[in-house]
């Protein structure tokens, strides 16, 4: 394996060139380096690890709930504590795990997959991570102080309003949402710009990797959907703290306005979580089948149409609120329509498996698990799109089963496959395949044992969000089965994580391209150097590393200063080379100032004014003018793109 480890990356320069570039792009050592880094890979890694930590916390909360529900009339936890736990579980999984970790995968992989040295806005990435961390820490500190959210992850009014949720619990929830949405929006802008403007020469949109298409679509969905929840929670917190009446029916407000705003975000959120998963599935399927994904144009159109349709069906979460019949029919039809692009993609992956030479390594097993589980979840989704059935099972465990099938099946299985697949690139070491397969089977079987019985429990009338149930209800056996499944699922996740932890220290060296994959990220060494690529890769096909002949590269980016190549949006032609910022403390200081504003305003609304001053000062420090990059690198100044004559 020594030979593998020493295999030279395709884009590597000579030793002097690589060392000079590594010095230019290096992160300072020690604590200062930790706090100031703007390396997209470092930030991506932190984001993923933090996301996994929140998965573990949310998972432990789930186990506590399942233990409580394992037998009827259990007294393990009080009703109030149970309210906090299911609210924390949902909030953690949706806001602190699912969306952030998907974006984190994008933050790490985007520059590598498009052939760039870094992201478009490295400091914004760093700010995004710090603000996300602050929001998550605030939520769990609140939990320890017994002021955690109690009104579910949706926090419907009037339950979450000033009348029924006294104290600070819901305010904490609302501001936590603001933290995570600011983080998500910042990452989305950085990612979309990187994908549109920083692709390697020759990587036209028609050659963009499918994972990048999914992240591009997701980024725009984030930009359009997340303002809705920020508005919903800002209105909620102002109703609670400064006496506004957005949701107060007595003063002309509307409870349903909250639901509309929340679900205008909440439904696209589901697709924001699983579109990146679909992209990962495409990358894994292509690599382990040794052929391009079948029907690339159809796959791209399916991703785009899913992103579009996702904004047209939020009201199906509100069927039980009493809509006009025309509204019912429209949203039923829209909900069923979105199954079409999902179905098209499933058939394309099956065709890829059929026509390729599949090697069922752990990542591909997770893909197969995804297809089975996601199709089942999709079918129960089509059932729920039908108003009569939805009204029968509304707020029952049938719905809980459905969305776990869709979210774990549609997003977590691909994510686990994706983390395993790109792990050698990140660490330079291979995970253990036997442990990987064990973890897959434990997770797959544990998942279905946990969640399939919930369909039946829901049909038998068991409502969600109840802390216990009577022995005479006939729900005990299925609940016990579900709890056993949950422990099996948790053991599988434990094996999965332990495998990665051990492999990071003792795994076999991976070399640049251990899976013989075709994407650009495999053209550089594992782990990649600080500058990602020595020479700039040039792309002549969708899987550049599978093309015959020598690998084309370009030279000419500056070695002594941080510089990135910008290309044209559609064709990926070299356009300009722009300076890129180095390590900075301002993103962290700005995140601290914004955190002061957000948290302070929970207790005193004047923090919105006074704390804006440090925020402004930090932003001025952040944007303080740097030396002209053009002059530093003595670039030609006569033909400036976009300048007027």
């Amino acid at each position, binding site marked *: 394996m020594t030979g593998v480890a020493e295999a030279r990356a395709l884009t590597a320069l000579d030793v002097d060139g690589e060392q000079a570039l590594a010095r230019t792009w290096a992160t300072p050592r020690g604590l200062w380096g930790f706090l100031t880094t703007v390396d997209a890979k470092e930030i991506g890694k932190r984001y993923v690890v933090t996301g996994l930590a929140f998965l573990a916390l949310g998972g432990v909360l789930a186990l506590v709930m399942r233990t409580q529900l394992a037998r009827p009339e259990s007294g393990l936890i009080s009703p109030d504590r149970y309210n906090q736990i299911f609210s924390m579980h949902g909030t953690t999984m949706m806001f602190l795990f699912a969306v952030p970790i998907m974006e984190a995968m994008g933050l790490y992989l985007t520059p590598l997959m498009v052939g760039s040295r870094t992201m478009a806005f490295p400091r914004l990435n760093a700010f995004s991570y710090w603000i996300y961390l602050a929001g998550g820490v605030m939520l769990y500190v609140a939990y320890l102080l017994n002021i955690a959210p109690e009104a579910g992850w949706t926090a419907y009014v009037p339950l979450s309003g000033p009348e029924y949720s006294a104290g600070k619990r819901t305010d904490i929830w609302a501001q936590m949402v603001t933290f995570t949405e600011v983080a998500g929006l910042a990452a989305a802008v950085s990612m979309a710009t990187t994908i549109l403007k920083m692709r390697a020469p020759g990587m036209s949109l028609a050659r963009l990797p499918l994972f990048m298409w999914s992240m591009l679509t997701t980024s725009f969905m984030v930009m359009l959907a997340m303002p809705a929840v920020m508005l919903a929670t800002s209105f909620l917190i102002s109703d609670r703290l400064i006496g506004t009446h957005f949701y107060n029916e007595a003063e002309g407000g509307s409870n349903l306005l909250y639901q509309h705003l929340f679900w205008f975000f909440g439904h696209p959120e589901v697709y924001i979580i699983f579109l990146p998963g679909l992209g990962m599935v495409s990358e894994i399927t292509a690599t382990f089948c040794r052929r391009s994904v079948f029907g690339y144009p159809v796959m791209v159109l399916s991703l785009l149409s899913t992103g579009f349709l996702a904004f047209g069906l939020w009201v199906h979460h509100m069927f039980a609120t009493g809509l006009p019949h025309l509204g019912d029919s429209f949203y039923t039809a829209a909900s069923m329509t979105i199954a079409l692009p999902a179905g098209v993609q499933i058939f394309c992956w099956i065709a890829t498996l059929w026509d390729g030479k599949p090697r069922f390594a752990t990542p591909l097993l997770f893909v197969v698990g995804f297809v089975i589980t996601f199709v089942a979840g999709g079918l129960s989704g089509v059932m729920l799109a039908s108003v009569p059935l939805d009204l029968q099972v509304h707020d029952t465990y049938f719905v809980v089963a459905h969305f776990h099938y869709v979210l774990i099946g549609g997003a977590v299985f691909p994510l686990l496959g994706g983390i395993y697949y790109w792990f050698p690139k990140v660490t330079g070491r291979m995970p253990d395949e036997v442990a990987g397969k064990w973890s897959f089977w434990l997770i797959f079987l544990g998942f279905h044992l946990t969640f399939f019985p919930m369909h039946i429990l829901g049909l038998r009338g068991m409502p969600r969000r109840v802390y216990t149930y009577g022995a005479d209800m006939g729900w005990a056996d299925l609940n016990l089965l579900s709890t056993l499944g949950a422990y099996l699922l948790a053991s599988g996740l434990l094996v999965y994580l332990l495998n990665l932890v051990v492999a990071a220290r003792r795994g076999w060296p991976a070399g640049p391209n251990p899976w013989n994959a075709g994407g650009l990220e495999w053209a550089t060494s594992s782990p990649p150097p600080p500058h990602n690529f020595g020479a700039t890769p040039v792309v002549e096909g969708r899987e550049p590393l599978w093309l015959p002949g020598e690998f084309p590269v370009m030279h000419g980016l500056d070695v002594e200063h941080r510089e990135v190549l*910008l290309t044209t949006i559609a064709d990926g032609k070299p356009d300009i080379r722009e300076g890129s910022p180095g390590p900075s403390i301002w993103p962290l200081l700005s995140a601290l100032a914004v955190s002061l504003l957000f948290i302070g305003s929970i207790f005193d609304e004047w923090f919105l004014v006074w704390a804006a001053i440090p925020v402004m000062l930090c932003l001025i420090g952040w944007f303080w003018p740097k030396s002209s990059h053009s002059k530093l690198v003595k670039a030609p100044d006569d033909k*400036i793109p976009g300048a007027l004559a």
Partner: protein
Amino acid sequence: MTARLVGDLSPLPAAGFRSHGLWFWAAMGFMVIEGAGFALACAAYIYLMNGAREWPLDGVAPDLGWGTAMAVLLVASLVPNALMSRASRRRLAGPTQLWAGVVFVLNTLALVVRGFEFLHLNTRWDANAYGSIVWALILLHTVHLLTDFIDTCFVTLLLFTHPIDTERFSDVDDDSVYWGFVVACWLPIYLLIYWAPRWAP
């Protein structure tokens, strides 16, 4: 597989305007986000208005004068804003400084007018849902006025204190694009705040 050199990137320029540079895309991204926020806040206004027995609720509509003055001022500011953009894209230092100064003055004036608008809304945020949504819309827009005020102030100051290179001209141009967005957002909000209460049945 080995590498094959196919080109040299060093002759490329190191700065560009509009869609050629990265900052333009940052501004576009945040305009998409803020535009979505504005659109949803306007939708919330219309939703509450449609569900109300009367509009405004228990009160009178805002006085037209200051809001209309704001609309006129903002639309008029688009002319020096366009001239600032054109001068910056031609990389002409003097005209860029001049028009940036004019835009800055108009931006400051807009903040003063906004102060009077608050005094003539004829409702409070805690009066009822009508007052809440009116204040939400106008505050949302004020945050954008303030953001662009700080941005324009900063950019203009640098034009007079630092050497003006191509990157700086590009910053000025990006600022002009953002100001156009702030003006464009005001027009539907103006119609909702000042005219919808007069037109509502």
